[in-house]
């Protein structure tokens, strides 16, 4: 239906397009127009739905994203999360007691602070009467935190939510082996000296071999990089294309950083160290340099290398989400609406990272929009090869027919609107925190570059994916 609607507009000559725009636009949010000279006509004026509360993003912040093992290496995850929360408090000056609920996403859990949301909230000085919970959904954990908040607001349960995410890859829980753990637990329960001695006699040296957190997919025992490499090969993505895309990401991130566009970053004074003010993973290199790297996962012929993959990152993000009327009553000028969203999942072996391909058309259809309506695309970049494979999948009629049950291809997002301020490849990807960064980047880009709708999409371990429409708040 939506495609039928867009066709007439597309086919009109340019002159009448301008005429149309001027005749339609004044009816909707007017001031936006002047800031956005290149804006097209939209299929829909707004995604507001009758009888459903509008949910708005007041603002969002993140700590600088750092390569793991650098300045944050002595911290604990809740320290980073706390920094994001205090940053959000400073940025928005929201009274702490107004916040109804706090939700955080995280992936590799620190066992001491398994509900990291609560620990960080208490440490950041939020009211101890504000409940908090932690969610996990691999790389889309923060997305899950946000959409949980959206649900709570839309259903009228809450008015003000803080959603965020945190990941600290500098420190991961490395466990004793199962046998050792069993021995230690049994020792705890042993009552007499004799029992203890007989247990200790069962000890063997190999019990001391540590157990690392899994880097591979549990269901398939394949690492994500390996899967990404196979995915790239399946869609005939070359090494050069991947390196070029990675270079683009780094160059754009560098440009955005230099121009001060990454306004969601808040400085963080690391205890006992300097104040960190910016992301440290942005390193534009040259194609020649990148070509020298050896494949990281499938040796010796793979195409995924360290340079065209996202790196292990420490970082945290937080966002203030409110019901629109509440935000207006409190005198805020929100940045964006959070609109329709969609979770998808597919085969965790061969389609592990194709989430965006599946989620994008579904969320667009649900919202009644088309690809042309989107002014800012913010996709999570796990690997260059993954992004490019998704592009090729979206651009393939064959794939759409045979695997997605669609008659035609999804269509390619225009590259000039795509991740213009860098992405996970260059800015970094703290698993649990990336979702909020994507939404804030989309919101900030819509504010800065003009445009009405942004599309956020991401893939995640387990073969899952997420997409959400962000609508700019009229100025």
């Amino acid at each position, binding site marked *: 239906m939506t495609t039928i609607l867009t066709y007439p507009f597309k086919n009109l000559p340019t002159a009448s397009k301008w005429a149309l725009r001027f005749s339609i636009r004044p009816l909707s949010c007017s001031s936006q127009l002047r800031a956005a000279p290149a804006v097209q006509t939209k299929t829909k004026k707004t995604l507001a739905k009758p009888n459903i509360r509008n949910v708005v993003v007041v603002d969002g912040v993140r700590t600088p994203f750092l390569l793991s093992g650098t300045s944050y290496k002595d911290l604990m995850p809740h320290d980073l999360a706390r920094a994001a929360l205090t940053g959000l408090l400073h940025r928005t000056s929201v009274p702490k007691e107004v916040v109804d609920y706090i939700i955080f996403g995280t992936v590799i859990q620190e066992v001491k602070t398994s509900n990291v949301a609560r620990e960080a909230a208490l440490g950041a000085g939020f009211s101890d009467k504000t409940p908090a919970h932690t969610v996990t959904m691999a790389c889309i954990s923060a997305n899950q935190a946000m959409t949980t908040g959206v649900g709570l607001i839309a259903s009228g349960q809450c008015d003000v939510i803080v959603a965020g995410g945190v990941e600290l890859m500098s420190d991961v829980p490395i466990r004793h082996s199962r046998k050792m753990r069993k021995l230690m637990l049994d020792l705890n329960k042993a009552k007499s000296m004799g029992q203890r001695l007989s247990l200790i006699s069962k000890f063997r040296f190999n019990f001391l071999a540590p157990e690392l957190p899994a880097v591979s997919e*549990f269901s398939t025992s*394949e690492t994500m990089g390996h899967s990404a490499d*196979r995915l790239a*090969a*399946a869609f*005939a993505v070359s090494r050069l294309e991947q390196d070029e895309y990675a270079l683009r990401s780094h160059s754009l991130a560098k440009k955005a950083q230099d121009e001060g566009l990454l306004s969601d970053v808040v400085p963080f004074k690391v205890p006992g160290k300097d104040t960190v003010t910016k992301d440290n993973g942005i390193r534009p290199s040259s194609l020649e340099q990148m070509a020298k790297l050896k494949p990281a996962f499938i040796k010796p*012929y793979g195409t995924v290398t360290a340079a065209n993959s996202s790196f292990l990152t420490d970082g945290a993000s937080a966002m203030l989400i409110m019901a629109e009327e509440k935000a207006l009553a409190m005198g805020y000028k929100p940045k964006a609406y959070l609109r329709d969203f969609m979770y998808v999942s597919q*085969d965790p072996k061969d389609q592990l990272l194709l989430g965006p391909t599946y989620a994008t058309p579904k969320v667009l259809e649900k919202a009644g929009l088309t690809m042309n309506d989107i002014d800012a695309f913010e996709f999570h970049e796990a690997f260059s090869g993954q992004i490019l494979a998704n592009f090729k999948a979206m651009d393939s009629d064959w*794939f759409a027919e045979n695997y997605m049950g669609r008659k035609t291809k999804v269509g390619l997002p225009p590259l000039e609107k795509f991740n213009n301020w860098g992405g996970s490849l260059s800015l970094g990807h703290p698993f649990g925190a990336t979702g909020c960064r994507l939404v804030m980047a989309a919101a900030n880009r819509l504010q800065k570059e003009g445009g009405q709708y942004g599309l956020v999409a991401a893939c995640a371990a387990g073969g899952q994916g997420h997409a959400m429409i962000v609508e700019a708040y009229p100025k």
Partner: protein
Amino acid sequence: MVTYRAIGSLSRFSAFRILRSQGYIRRNFTGSFALLTRTHINYGVKGDVILHSEFTEVMNEIWASDQIRSAILISPKPGCFIVGADINILATCKTPQEVTQIPQEAQRTSEKLEKSIKPVVTAITTKDRKTVFGAPEVLLGILPGAGGTQRLPKMVGVPAAFDMMLTARNMRADRAKKMGLVDQLVVSLGPGLKLPEEWTIKYLEEVKISPKRNKGLVGKLTAYAMTIPFVRQQIYKKRTKGLYPTPLKIIDVVKTGIEQGSDAGYLSESQKFGELAMTKESKALMGLYHGQVLCKKNTSGAPQKDVKHLAIPGAGMMGAGIAQVSVDKGRKTILKDATLTGLVFKGLNDKVEKKALTSFERDSIFSNLTGKLDYQDMVMDAVFEDLSFKHRVLKGVEAVIPDHYVFASNTSPLPISEIAAVSKRPEKVIGRHYFSPADKMQLLEMITTEKTSKDTSASTVAIGLKQGKVIIVVKDGPGFYTTRCLAPMMSEVIRILQEGVDPKKLDSLTTSLGLPVGAATLVDEVGVDVAKHVAKDLGKAFGERFGGRKSGEGFSIYQETSLKMPPKSEVSSDEDIQFRLLTRFVNEAVTCLQEGILATPAEGDIGAVFGLSFPPCLGGPFCFVDLYEAQKIVDRLKKHEAAYGKEFTPSQLLADHTNSPNKKFHQ
């Protein structure tokens, strides 16, 4: 997963033209900008056998062309490569000298490949974990003839090579990689711009591979140890046990290759190959192979309806075993007794421990099993072997299931027609006799009654094949086929023991025949009570031929009792004892064929070997008669008949065979 065996190294290419030629071998020529060219030979596999002349022709083209720098061999049939030579060719040869010619040609080609100046790479696409590497020739009583005995020890080391060639052990791709049999594993691609299978083949043409192999410390040490003659002797010696001539010859050939160089090795390989192919054992084993292939086909045709759901009322070990082989193959299965699902889980978990499954695969397979009962497309009962109880279950089930459902009863002693007697729809009732443990034993005996419809039979066979079974279909009758043949042999075992033969001696006499378990041990395992129960049933049905003697309670207390019988010296030599057991079995098997219980002798052989562990080197009862001549067997039987009476009366069919010596069961 795709596996590479490299005999050289390659760099990247992009395709520019494709040529196709007639015949089974397709040639795809691909080239690159750097003027490096290679051929991608798509191996057409016809009935798993390559045509040697065509292959040589293509390889000569490659070696002759100065445009071609390297070649890659791929089979377009996924999960497959050159499986081996056609064993039917061997059957046409009359003398060892004739057979010796066959491997010599193959040896020359392989050697040429090995010494090729142009790199040749072999890529094998493997299907799931099903594709395996191995040297299974020993199972046919022959040896790897195309230079395998010479090349394999060099590649994987002598001990590992012996392990593969003497036990016919199969290696999955990952294991083969670890051993050094393959150079590289490539995980196949998922859906992309084309079908995964097609795209993977293209991917294979493009990927770089590195053939360099570093032997680990263990490998280096073994290689060093093998240079010491004393160690070599120890390794040769360790493996020389067993009944079959093949392992000894294989060791011999490998030894020749190592001690005297590969030319002598090749010569010895081809000569021994010729000798082995002419042995009775080899003929017996090849006959079995053909029979097995036959029994893996659904002779009743395709079923009208694909069975997706199974229900198994009543369980126990047997039900659990059946459930396991069913869920394994993705059938939704329901087990009546919920506590028994644990047994199935244990069976699957054993596979995880052997690394045949991952824990995740185990869980997803196990999710096909439900521990309750509502009836599905096919109901297989595995309740206690009691006719009235079976009747109750059948009536109960029929009251609630729709008409198209098949009722398959698992039983060994109960006649199916009696079970079916109370059925409203006897055409949908069929018997199945699994062998314990059901997840390990390959044979499935299916019993049809007069009334069983063809479609019922077809869909039950289809399920059995899905469960990975070798299937024989027999007519209903007391003891069906397998139990009926086993029973007289068992009663003979008991008589032999009653005559005072030491159980241990009897065990060694029977294992030396080729039975995997000694006869006395077998009776103990089956349980004397069960044997008695069965013997009583069959005795009722067949009268005198099945004895009427009393049996004891178990052999340990047996000899103390008054059941002892005086041995008859004229038929009590070691050989006589062996033949008394064998001939009773064989005689009963032939009677089954004569009475139409069995449809073909091939099925009889397969049933005996796979279900009852009849010595494979004898090839099954019918093959045994063919190879050892009916006349000799009848003579033996008559001798025993004179001593013991009617139990040994030769069957009519057997007598017919003695009258016309050219008549064979297997033509």
